[in-house]
């Protein structure tokens, strides 16, 4: 019999519908795999009962001859940025340790309403601030991938990052601990970890998925999306996650398209733009080669390739590192030791001292760094020079994309400037870490849908991803271009189990 944990969303959904196996069997297989993978540190909380309850409901509905829900029998992982009712939600920070939400985030509720069950809460960079999962207060997530050139000494088997911030999600999917998981993306936090672990992930247009009940990082950028093994599974899961929510002021009041039904890998008549500014200095030859391969695949699928220019690309990262910390410094003001989470009250401390002590004890270094940068750029005398200027540059970056859409339908770029790096390799230099998001941040600043699909392996046997960026609300073209590449890449590599 097939190992059920090798199946993705579509295969599980269809198998449960057809009675090839029960939802309970699927849940049991994944729960066992999660329990046996503690060394990856992907899960912060395991919730087998949640998964079993959803599975039993699916099996009961099938036995009763009812129409099964879109995700009936599919167990998923939930990034710990989503508040889940009755289940500890910490955003991987000590400051939220012990917080048990009395409510459910809209996106997770949508998934449960669609019949999905939860295997557990996934580790991540603290408050989603990081690109390597090293800022979690509960330990690094270890990628299931290892370099194939470990050598006799095995020294090249240094533990690798699964990417970040959705690194628990990417590691868990790549290790077959769950068929899919939620992610969130502020500057690349779905796409970069997907690329580093050989899976697919899509950040939809800003406003497609409700931010209600998602721990806020930078509200004008934060957007939830699915991470899964392939493009079809992403389409299925995104349909379940998206939708209008009156409780999120920036939620788009639009119907959710039938993305799965609209999937087509035929790109005839489509124009794919290649932004020349994404050919950055010191880009490894393997990344350039992968990009050229992606262009060849797109041509093979019938697309016409056009070169486009996004002249303000080089300013995207510095603009992002003003805007995102500014919004974070404001959003994270709520962690004060009064209403939830940690309180540190030194002997004799007054209220102000309690706030300062609580925040010093509860936030990790990277979170403090970003709060302080944000506080600085918003402070009197600096606001216009930094924050207003960054917001103007953001307008110019969005205009660059608008101009590009006059000559193409989607853009094709690498997802990240390198394959996964070793844990600790970049943690001493914040700017080196920030540069990892050079290809993903511009589309985040413009609110555009963008996805990463696996393109191949580098010389060390590590996955590399290709990114597709689309017009606002045109997730379908993004998914279809992703599918065309997926069909031609034939990516079947998976990490050899060592954990």
């Amino acid at each position: 019999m097939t190992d059920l944990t090798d199946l993705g969303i579509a295969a599980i959904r269809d198998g449960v519908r057809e009675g090839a196996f029960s939802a309970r069997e699927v849940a049991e297989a994944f729960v066992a795999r999660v329990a046996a993978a503690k060394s990856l540190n992907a899960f912060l909380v395991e919730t087998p009962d949640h998964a079993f309850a959803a599975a039993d409901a699916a099996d009961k509905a099938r036995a009763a001859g009812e129409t099964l829900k879109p995700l009936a029998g599919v167990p998923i992982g939930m990034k710990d940025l989503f508040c889940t009712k009755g289940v500890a939600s910490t955003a991987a920070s000590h400051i939220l340790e012990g917080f048990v939400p009395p409510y459910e985030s809209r996106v997770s509720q949508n998934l449960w309403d669609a019949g999905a069950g939860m295997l557990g809460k996934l580790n991540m960079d603290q408050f989603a601030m990081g690109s390597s999962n090293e800022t979690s207060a509960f330990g690094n997530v270890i990628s299931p991938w290892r370099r194939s050139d470990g050598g006799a000494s095995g020294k090249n088997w240094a533990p690798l990052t699964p990417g970040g911030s959705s690194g628990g999600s990417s590691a868990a999917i790549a290790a077959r601990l769950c068929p899919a998981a939620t992610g969130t993306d502020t500057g690349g936090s779905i796409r970069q970890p997907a690329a580093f672990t050989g899976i697919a992930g899509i950040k939809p247009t800003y406003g497609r998925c409700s931010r209600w009940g998602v721990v806020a990082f930078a509200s004008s950028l934060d957007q939830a999306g699915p991470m899964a093994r392939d493009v079809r599974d992403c389409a299925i899961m995104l349909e379940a996650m998206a939708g209008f929510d009156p409780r999120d002021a920036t939620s788009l009041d639009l119907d959710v398209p039938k993305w799965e039904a609209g999937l087509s890998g035929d790109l005839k008549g489509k124009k794919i733009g290649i932004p020349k500014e994404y050919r950055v200095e010191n880009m490894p030859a393997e990344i350039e080669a992968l990009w050229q391969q992606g262009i060849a695949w797109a041509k093979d699928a019938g697309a016409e390739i056009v070169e486009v220019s996004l002249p303000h690309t080089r300013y995207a990262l510095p603009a992002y590192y003003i805007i995102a910390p500014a919004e974070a410094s404001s959003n994270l003001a709520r962690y004060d030791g009064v209403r939830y989470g940690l309180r540190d009250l030194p002997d004799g401390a007054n209220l102000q001292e309690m706030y300062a002590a609580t925040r010093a004890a509860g936030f990790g270094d990277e979170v403090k760094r970003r709060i302080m940068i944000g506080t600085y750029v918003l402070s009197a005398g600096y606001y216009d020079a930094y924050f207003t200027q960054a917001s103007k540059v953001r307008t110019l970056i969005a205009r660059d994309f608008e101009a590009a859409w006059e000559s193409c339908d989607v853009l094709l770029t690498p997802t990240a400037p390198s394959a996964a790096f070793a844990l600790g390799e970049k943690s001493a230099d914040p700017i080196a870490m920030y540069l990892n998001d050079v290809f993903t941040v511009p589309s985040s600043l413009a609110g555009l849908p963008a996805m990463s699909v696996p393109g191949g392996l580098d010389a060390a046997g590590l996955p590399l991803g290709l990114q597709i960026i689309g017009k606002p609300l045109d997730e379908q073209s993004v998914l279809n271009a992703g599918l065309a590449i997926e069909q031609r890449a034939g990516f079947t590599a998976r990490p050899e189990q060592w954990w």
Partner: protein
Amino acid sequence: MSVDTATVKRIASLARIAITDAEAERLAPELGNILGWIEQLGEVDTGDVAPMTAVIPNHLRLRDDVVTDGGARDAVLANAPQAEHGFFAVPKVIE
């Protein structure tokens, strides 16, 4: 751009984060490097460009002015580090 420890302490105080002298020493060059890096934005000509306020055109919705939620005091207080008599409790603030 150089940031001195006095500036770091002032920012930390505005951000309500307690820091030691040693931490301020460590953070000063770190923040200086990051701020120096983001200062390159100054070279972009943004003379007649409006700052972005919404990435995707959307309109602010109004809802009916009616009660839609409430009566959840115990749930609201359930996660408080200290709650007394139906209120959040904090150290005494009356001088």
